[in-house]
């Protein structure tokens, strides 16, 4: 390996912030400006819950879609792929709003969104995925160890009235008041 690559940079470094012994899936989420909407939104969460919404899965994450969403990942099997939610993506959103309760899923967990026709391997254990269940690690294909890849679709997250991310739209049993949330509301949200 080139020795130049081993020199850490002097300024604030992401590499120095890496936790020894842990490496989550790299995550990157595009932000869209919601300032215009947020400026008129004094209690956006209250508004969201007045008319709770549960938008469908989309395949075009354009600025015209204003819901807070995370990407879906597909794990191809011999036939129908299973689809998954990456806990890193959920936590990336949650960390935008310091003070909110931790989300329902951790950085290293994955949630099955839809089942395929193949079993998967999670942390060396063979598992028959069940939609909605949160698993302890990243799923992989049994035959060749292939990992989930983004499939171009996105699902909206659900929050409760405290701003805690409690799930995604489309799986899991909602308990209490939950709703999808607009990006602008999320970026202007301040926990009590």
């Amino acid at each position: 390996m080139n020795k130049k690559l081993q020199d850490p940079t002097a300024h604030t470094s992401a590499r120095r912030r890496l936790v020894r012994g842990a490496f989550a899936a790299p995550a990157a989420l595009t932000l869209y400006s919601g300032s215009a909407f947020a400026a008129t939104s004094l209690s956006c969460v209250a508004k969201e819950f007045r008319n709770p919404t549960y938008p469908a899965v989309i395949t075009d994450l354009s600025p015209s879609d204003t819901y807070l969403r995370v990407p879906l990942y597909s794990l191809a099997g011999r036939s129908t792929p299973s689809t998954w939610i990456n806990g890193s993506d959920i936590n990336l959103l949650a960390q935008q709003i310091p003070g909110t309760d931790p989300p329902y899923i951790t950085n290293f967990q994955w949630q099955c969104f839809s089942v395929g026709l193949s079993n998967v391997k999670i942390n060396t254990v063979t598992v028959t995925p069940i939609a909605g269940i949160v698993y302890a690690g990243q799923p992989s294909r049994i035959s060749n160890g292939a990992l989930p890849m983004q499939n171009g679709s996105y699902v909206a997250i659900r929050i409760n009235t405290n701003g805690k991310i409690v799930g995604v739209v489309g799986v899991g049993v909602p308990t209490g008041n939950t709703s999808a949330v607009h990006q602008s509301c999320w970026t202007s949200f301040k926990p009590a």
Partner: protein
Amino acid sequence: MQRFARVEGILVEPIGHLWAAFSPATGETALLNDESASILEVLEIEPADTAAVCAVLSSDSGIAPDELFALVDGSWQQLTEVGLVRELPVSRNHPQ
């Protein structure tokens, strides 16, 4: 092995526990976790392939390079789509 470069002119700044990365290529800002930002830092020094990036991040995280490989390899699509990384054309002069 396919090599990747950091897109010229991107700005990466820490924001709390996360990183904001602006790409002049897309005109958009992306929110990154430490792992994604670390990959960009490695590429800031020079373009690299997945194995080289994993070797560096292995020394930072204490995790074996082969355990990192799938995670890093799976991140290129996302980092490319948000305009932070570009795939370099394969050069005949570069050892594969």
